């Protein structure tokens, strides 16, 4: 039995054992032990994932779906096994509903450019929320611009919670699709996805969920959530960058036109006519990120052995600890205090720009994100140009929070 499996059997979440799996955490930055609090931007990788990618490149690498030779068969098997793993991970009904894309952003663009272009017409409405990442705003804006449709926005309150009454009002006869984050990257808000899906489905409106920030922290079950599309990125969940997943309900995917043209998405081609391949290959043109997909499978194995339920409970406790610690600091204002929150501490320090906060923390070896987090409308909503964001993952501990607090005291000292 592997170390990780042993850990899971014992049932306790042992953060120090988890930390030992991540080589990047064992280094010094600016002469101080690294404190990595930027996992919402991109997460570090466990050696189990690094080793799986390395082993794949060392022994089994080849192109997939075409070769008749041994290596191509091995690579194809690894790639398609990964698809089954993803299907189980998000609890999809069929592996035909799992499409490999470059990441969450491409997943959203795929839906906007295929489902959207067929189903959205002049005067129609696309509904998003005020807490979306730019990648869940711009693809819809582009679609609406092309179709002369309208982008409608569900407001959020001062805590960072979705205004559900407004959402009910905004779901109208012209609403064609609702696209929304599961967890907000800038505020940490966990949205009531199941409830929103029910409201939308009562009116026959499909729902796309941007799961980029949810997948590393929560158990995702697309059937229980009821959503029609769900998209995520491997790099946020401790896997390789440049690979992600779009889940789509088979009935919808079947009716969608192709996304990109090229190899793997076709059955046969003549200059007169092309017959498209079956699902899910129809949406996977070109040689994909094969090793990335293999790495994603290793990531899922890793998360499964640790248990996302245990991760969620641990992170909630850590978030509470961090929230209390930051609230004690004078002149610090938390942005985003939703009732249900995950992993994000976004804040401003009175009289100090977030960028300066980031530089001073970096000098102490502490990595946080500063800026608008690709969510400028959220910054506008809270009247700040930018925030500093400390985002937590399963490998963070209380010591990381204590170091952050000490770093923030230093910020006050520099700017005193």
């Amino acid at each position, binding site marked *: 039995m592997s170390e990780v499996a042993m850990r899971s059997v014992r049932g306790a979440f042992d953060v120090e054992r988890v930390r030992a799996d991540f080589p990047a955490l064992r280094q010094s930055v600016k002469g101080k032990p690294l404190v990595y609090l930027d996992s919402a931007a991109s997460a570090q990788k466990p050696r189990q994932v690094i080793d799986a990618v390395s082993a794949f490149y060392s022994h089994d690498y080849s192109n997939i779906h075409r070769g008749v030779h041994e290596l191509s068969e091995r690579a194809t098997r690894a790639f398609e096994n990964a698809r089954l793993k993803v299907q189980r991970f998000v609890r999809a009904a069929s592996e035909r509903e799992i499409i490999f894309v470059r990441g969450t952003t491409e997943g959203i663009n795929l839906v906007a450019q295929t489902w959207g272009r067929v189903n959205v017409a002049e005067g129609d409405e696309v509904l998003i929320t005020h807490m979306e990442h730019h990648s869940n705003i711009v693809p819809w804006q582009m679609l609406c611009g092309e179709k002369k449709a309208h982008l409608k926005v569900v407001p959020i309150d001062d805590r960072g919670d979705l205004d559900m009454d407004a959402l009910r009002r905004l779901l109208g006869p012209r609403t064609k699709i609702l696209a929304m984050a599961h967890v907000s990257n800038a505020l940490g808000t966990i949205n009531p996805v199941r409830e929103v899906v029910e409201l939308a489905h009562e009116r026959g409106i499909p729902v796309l969920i941007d799961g980029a920030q949810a997948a590393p922290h929560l158990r995702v079950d697309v059937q229980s959530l009821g959503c029609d599309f769900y998209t995520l990125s491997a790099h946020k969940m401790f896997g390789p960058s440049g690979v992600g997943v779009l889940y789509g309900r088979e009935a919808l995917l079947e009716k969608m036109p192709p996304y990109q043209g090229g190899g793997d998405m076709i059955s046969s081609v003549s200059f007169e006519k092309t017959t498209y391949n079956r699902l899910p290959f129809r949406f996977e043109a070109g040689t994909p990120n094969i090793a990335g997909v293999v790495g994603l499978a290793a990531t899922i194995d890793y998360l499964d052995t640790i248990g996302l339920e245990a991760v969620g409970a641990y992170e909630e406790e850590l978030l509470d600890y961090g929230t209390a610690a930051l609230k004690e600091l004078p002149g610090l204002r938390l942005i985003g205090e939703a009732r249900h929150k995950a992993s994000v501490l976004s804040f401003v320090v009175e*009289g*100090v720009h977030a*960028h300066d906060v980031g*530089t001073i923390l970096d000098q102490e070896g502490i990595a946080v994100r500063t800026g608008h987090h690709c969510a400028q409308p959220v910054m506008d909503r809270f009247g700040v*140009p930018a925030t500093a964001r400390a985002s937590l993952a399963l490998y963070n501990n209380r010591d990381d929070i204590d170091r952050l607090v000490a770093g923030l005291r*230093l910020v006050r000292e*520099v*700017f005193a």
Partner: protein
Amino acid sequence: MSVDPALRELYQEVILDHSKNPRNFHEITEATHSAKGENPLCGDRLSLYLVVDEGVIRDVGFRGAGCAISTASASMMSEILKEKTEEEAQTIFSAFHDLVTGKTEDETLGKLAVFAGVRDYPVRVKCATLAWHTMRAALSRKEEAVSTE
């Protein structure tokens, strides 16, 4: 925990002073030249106003929101550019740019030498140069906003 010398070099007293009390922090309604600058990385925004008379910059004002480095840079620039010719302004821009990117240690920059610490923080060069790029855009009467990205 004490303040690291490299940090103190970056955030010198004069920079902190200018960032907290920016000079010439106002709009000039009768400006002959103006431009907007922004740094999408951190959300810094700056509007710059110049009064140019026969090739000489008579008055400078700016508004905006930014980090300490970008605000102090704009504030000190606004003081230094007054009564300089357009050519002199361009020369100072080049010298300043070389200073913060670590290409030279220009003795002629006077007070602006406090920005030398920026060269150790490559990611902050854009903050230090935002106002200066905006000044060049204003002088060349560029319509669109200047972006450091």
